[in-house]
């Protein structure tokens, strides 16, 4: 069953009679009596009961949830609910329908919650931008990038400034000239020299490693 497409009203997870028959056919222990003793404070009976019903609850939950962790969450939710409302069980009535009703109710509640959450949320892939600031979405740190950054740091100051302005900040020659107060030919020469020395520095680095 697909989790997203079900209509809760049409969900019939288990019929009470199926559950009742199956537990009688199972270990033979009468859950109704165990529950009555648990209500009186018999912890061993309570443990036997909870351990006995867990596989059934799990089988119900497994019909509605695909992920094992979701199934286990649902099982725990049902167990907690049984614990919270155990005083509401009347031992003169069969235990199977009582358990089935609680399990159905809690599982349907969880399915509804999941469906609501899925309707509101969109899964992000790695391609999605995570922050509004462009700088935060730049993935730095590959070896080449680090080496290049270090090489630029080692350039003489005028070449470093030229490379920053023209290549990293993507300014035009005119803008760079205005910003630095140097002539356009001087910038061209500085760029040429800077790239030559960068090439040399990076080549030396790759040779040495």
């Amino acid at each position, binding site marked *: 069953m697909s989790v997203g497409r079900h209509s809760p009203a049409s969900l019939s997870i288990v019929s009470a009679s199926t559950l009742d028959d199956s537990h009688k056919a199972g270990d033979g222990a009468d859950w109704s009596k165990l529950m009555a003793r648990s209500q009186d404070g018999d912890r061993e009976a309570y*443990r036997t009961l909870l351990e006995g019903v867990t596989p059934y609850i799990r089988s119900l939950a497994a019909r509605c949830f695909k992920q094992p962790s979701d199934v286990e969450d649902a099982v725990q939710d049902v*167990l907690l609910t049984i614990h919270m409302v155990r005083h509401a069980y009347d031992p003169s009535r069969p235990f199977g329908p009582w358990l089935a009703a609680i399990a159905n109710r809690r599982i349907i509640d969880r399915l509804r919650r999941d469906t609501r959450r899925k309707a509101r949320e969109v899964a992000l892939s790695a391609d999605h931008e995570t922050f509004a600031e462009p700088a935060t979405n730049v993935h730095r740190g590959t070896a080449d990038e680090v080496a290049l950054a270090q090489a630029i740091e080692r350039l003489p100051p005028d070449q470093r400034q030229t490379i920053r302005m023209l290549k990293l900040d993507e300014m035009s020659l005119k803008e760079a000239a205005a910003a630095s107060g140097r002539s356009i030919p001087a910038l061209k020469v500085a760029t040429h020299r800077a790239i030559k020395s960068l090439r040399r520095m990076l080549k030396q680095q790759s040779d040495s490693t």
Partner: protein
Amino acid sequence: MTRTPDLIDALVETAAPVRRLRPPIIRAGLWLAFAAIVLGLIAIAHGLRPDFSDRVRQPLFVLGMLGALATGMLAAVASFRLSLPDSSRLWAVLPLPALALWVATIGYGCLTDWVSMDPDGLHMGEAIRCFATLLMTSVPLSIAMLVMLRYAALLRPLEVSVMSGLAVAAVTAFALSLFHELDATVMILIWNLGSAVLIAALGSLFGQSMLTWMASRFATLPR
């Protein structure tokens, strides 16, 4: 994430003896007894409406009163029934015949008394006292219902809160026509049906979250 066997250990560890709930019909009876006490106290403090002896002789009035009272009683029974996980949803139908009778008498009264409406309408002082009765009846009854049905938060919050809202609304309407002269038809409609709808709507809007809140306040749940 807690492992399920660990959770079972923890639950067994904290499993104190619990007192079983009494049968739903008895619990509904207890709530109705509480409602009777509240109404009795108001009757002592405020007194019945001055024209009560006259009005009691009018079949329509008696029918309306009985309709409201029966709606309240049946809705209370239905609430306590529905709060049990293994009881049928069909219990929600139980108060509907009485509700139909009650609403029908209000509607019929409107139709016949329209012309005879008091030109002065209702005096302001009376309206305020009416409102006081409304609060004095519905607030304690709602709180009592919430406390008694808090465990239903995990099971059927919506059905139970609508049903208990209806029970409180019907008992409140019964109280209003017991204590206040509400002969102007429009006023009857506003007070009786309006307050009933208001209380039932509040019950269904906030009942669910109130039940959850109440359940968390009593996390250990009753002994």
